[in-house]
């Protein structure tokens, strides 16, 4: 009898798992022995790191979008619908049209989304660049912002922990080149005691901020925003004013995870840090932003996790044990201006060490922005 692998979520992780799986067992897929079904709510695949460039006016949205069907290898069965309910007892997923799809193995790759309502007043008073819509709004706001204070606030948890820094460094560089830096004050805030959760990154920006004249505050967790007075209030009892508020709102997991009671209150899925199995379910994996793992929510995390999950699925489909373990590997580029960047890599046992930014790494990041479409197809 055919075995069916169902993947929920067709973002970075879900698309990679589907493509990598059909690549790994082409014969089984062709003969119908294994069915690979991808359920996704979006028919257009959007490359989220592009939002940073869109907000800063450095790129247009069209370059970061592709039809999902163009990304899928033959053999992947595409269901362009939102999953509405996952039932682990019946081993089935219900989709928006009411259809029920049964699975032998399930991969949850439903991602995370910024909750613009998590901080009262933020939706009215703030801007973000963490969704396509918001990045376009911020682009317009930045274009008419000619003097005053830009305050950057960061909620917990959030995806791509280096994007807020990249935003500030790139904007600072642009302001300097256009001779507008003197009219605009830049202030960065961070939830914990240092400037970044990664100590070496924190040390690096500790040096860079004074050079770039970027002010900062730590232990800064905004609780409410007063959009009329243009003031933010923190849960540590501080307040700060702004002329333009840019924020990374706290993120939450997907609604379907909460509705199916597979996650905690915010929708994060309890996941084993080594096997990537959903805790308590032998035939279910979770990858990417959707997990509750204390890891950076980044495309690269998702990428490395997808390799592990596919190898284990292949073992399990062949009746073997899923012995491949995830080592916590993550790799990130960090833009340090409009034409220079650095990069870091780390895992559960090795902390990162950023090197000095160079133009070469910046070009590599831009190249990766294009190579992403190949990585989705499981080519590397």
């Amino acid at each position, binding site marked *: 009898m055919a075995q069916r692998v169902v993947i929920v979520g067709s973002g970075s992780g879900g698309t990679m798992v589907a493509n990598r799986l059909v690549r790994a067992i082409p014969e089984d897929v062709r003969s119908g022995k294994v069915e690979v079904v991808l359920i996704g709510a979006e028919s257009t695949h959007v490359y989220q790191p592009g939002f940073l460039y869109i907000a800063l006016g450095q790129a247009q949205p069209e370059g970061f979008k592709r039809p999902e069907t163009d990304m899928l290898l033959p053999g992947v069965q595409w269901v362009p619908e939102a999953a509405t309910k996952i039932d682990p007892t019946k081993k089935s997923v219900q989709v928006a049209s009411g259809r029920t799809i049964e699975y032998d193995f399930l991969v949850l790759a439903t991602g995370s989304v910024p909750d613009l309502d998590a901080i009262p007043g933020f939706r009215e008073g703030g801007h973000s660049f963490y969704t396509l819509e918001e990045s376009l709004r911020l682009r317009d706001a930045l274009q008419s912002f000619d003097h005053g204070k830009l305050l950057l606030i960061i909620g917990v*948890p959030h995806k791509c922990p280096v994007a807020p820094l990249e935003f500030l460094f790139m904007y600072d560089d642009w302001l300097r080149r256009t001779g507008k830096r003197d009219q605009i004050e830049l202030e960065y805030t961070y939830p914990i005691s240092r400037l970044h*959760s990664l100590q070496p990154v924190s040390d690096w920006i500790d040096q860079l901020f004074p050079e770039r004249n970027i002010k900062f505050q730590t*232990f800064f967790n905004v609780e409410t925003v007063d959009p009329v007075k243009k003031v933010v209030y923190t849960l540590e009892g501080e307040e700060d004013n702004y002329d333009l508020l840019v924020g990374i709102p706290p993120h939450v997991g997907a609604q379907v995870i909460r509705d199916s009671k597979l996650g905690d209150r915010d929708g994060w899925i309890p996941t084993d840090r080594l096997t990537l199995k959903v805790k308590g379910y032998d035939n279910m994996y979770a990858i990417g932003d959707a997990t509750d793992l*204390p890891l950076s929510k980044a495309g690269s995390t998702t990428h490395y996790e997808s390799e592990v999950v596919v190898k284990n699925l292949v073992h399990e489909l062949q009746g073997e044990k899923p012995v491949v373990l995830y080592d916590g590997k993550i790799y990130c580029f960090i833009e340090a201006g409009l034409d220079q960047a650095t990069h870091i890599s*780390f895992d559960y046992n090795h902390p990162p060490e950023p090197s000095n930014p160079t133009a070469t790494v910046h070009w590599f990041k831009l190249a990766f922005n294009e190579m992403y479409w190949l990585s989705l197809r499981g080519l590397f």
Partner: protein
Amino acid sequence: MSDVQATKEIDARGSFCPGPMMELIRVVRSSDVGEVIAVLSSDQGSRRDIPTWVEKAKHELIGIETLDGYDRILVKKLH
């Protein structure tokens, strides 16, 4: 102190990013008042940072237990 029951436990050992402190803030935000959260951390900085933040944010530090190569830090959400 190992007898103190936590309602939630966060295993942030080996987590460089977001790290134990950030994980604690995340879980405190989504917990009910009165819940006790245990953070397991192998990061030296957290021993200092977590109590500082807990005081600033007016929650309660129940204690820090040093175990085999890591700390178990207990925090109660007060508001």
